[in-house]
């Protein structure tokens, strides 16, 4: 049930991102996957599942992208960094922690995209057309989606627990 709700939340975030039409290429479609990974990170407790989801979503994005492996590497490294951050004072249960981790993960995604493209010398993406304002807006939108969906999910779970307690 928990994973079904995660998938539904992912579909909701995908639909929301499709409405926005923010980026001219596959970056546009990778954002909902980032949101879904974060939601799974916050509410899931199975790390293998989280990594597997990151791998599969990355491979799916890579199959649609012109550079194979870039999104997979990005997603897996993001999960790894999030796991390290989880061990620090940024706990995932607080509102501030959720916001900071969400923002950090989205900025890490762009840093990794830039970095990996630079290392492997990919000239397919036109970075010149990508403004920093769009990156900032997208990070803010993603964070908002994560927070809203987190609240919805937590409320749903609480209601379920209350019903079960009767």
């Amino acid at each position, binding site marked *: 049930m928990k994973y079904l709700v995660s998938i539904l939340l992912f579909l909701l975030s995908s639909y929301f991102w499709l409405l926005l039409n923010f980026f001219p290429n596959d970056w546009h479609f990778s954002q909902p996957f980032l949101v879904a990974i974060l939601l799974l990170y916050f509410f899931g407790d199975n*790390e*293998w599942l989280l*990594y*597997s989801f*990151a*791998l599969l979503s*990355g*491979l799916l994005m*890579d199959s649609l992208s012109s550079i*194979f*492996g870039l999104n*997979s*590497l990005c997603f*897996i490294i993001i*999960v*790894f960094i999030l*796991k*390290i951050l989880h*061990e620090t004072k940024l706990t995932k249960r607080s509102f501030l922690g959720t916001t900071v981790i969400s923002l950090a993960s989205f900025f890490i995604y762009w840093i990794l995209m830039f970095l990996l493209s630079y290392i492997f010398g990919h000239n397919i993406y036109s970075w010149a057309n990508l403004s920093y304002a769009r990156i900032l807006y997208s990070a803010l939108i993603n964070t908002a989606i994560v927070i809203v969906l987190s609240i919805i999910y937590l409320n749903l779970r609480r209601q379920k627990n209350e019903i079960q307690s009767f």
Partner: protein
Amino acid sequence: MPRNFFSQFFIFLIIVLIFIGLKSGRIFDIGILFRHYFIPENITNRLLKQPENLSEDYQKLLVENSNLKNLAEENKQLRELLNFKNIIQKDLVVANIINRDPINNNILIINAGKNNKVDIGQAVIINNGVMVGKVIAVGDDYAQVRLITDQFSRLAVTVGGEQKISGIVTGTLGLSLNLSFVPQELEIKKGDLIYSASSDPKVPAGLVVGQVDEVKFEQEDLFKQASATTLVSLDSLSLVAVITGL
């Protein structure tokens, strides 16, 4: 920090790298398997093989293309003749050249005759009113036309636009024209257009006949002479019109 963190990360990192290697063909070209099993060899051969009936279709298309070009050319000529008819306000009878005289190549046989009001002496033109000859014999449904380049052809002409210098154009063995009987005192030069004169009642004045090429002039001669050329090639005529409304 738990050891499990790094192990999980490295396992998935290696999986991604394996996928990248497989996709790029550095480890193993996985596409060979799919191509071998899902695309049978005969399909590949069939795609690479040239179609058998290609040559035949090409020939058909060539013929069709040639016919279309002929139709387009004929259409263009007819449009020009129609346009010319509106300008001169005379009746035109459009005719196809069905044959040439086997002895004298400068005599054409056209498929219009008395039934179409074609008469001896009438002018034969092509598109835009360029005169190419005169009718010399008429049957019920055919007529003979002598080209202006024929050596027995005679036509009263005027040279130039304003001066109206008169002369006679004769053919020279079907090759070019000879302009003679031009008065000495009048000036003609290379490039002047030659028009039909109004002296012939069955040939309207002002039809373009040719262009002055080289002027021959000697002091002791009474008249000037000049060689002239036709504006169109008379060897490849297929459609003509006879001016019958005179």
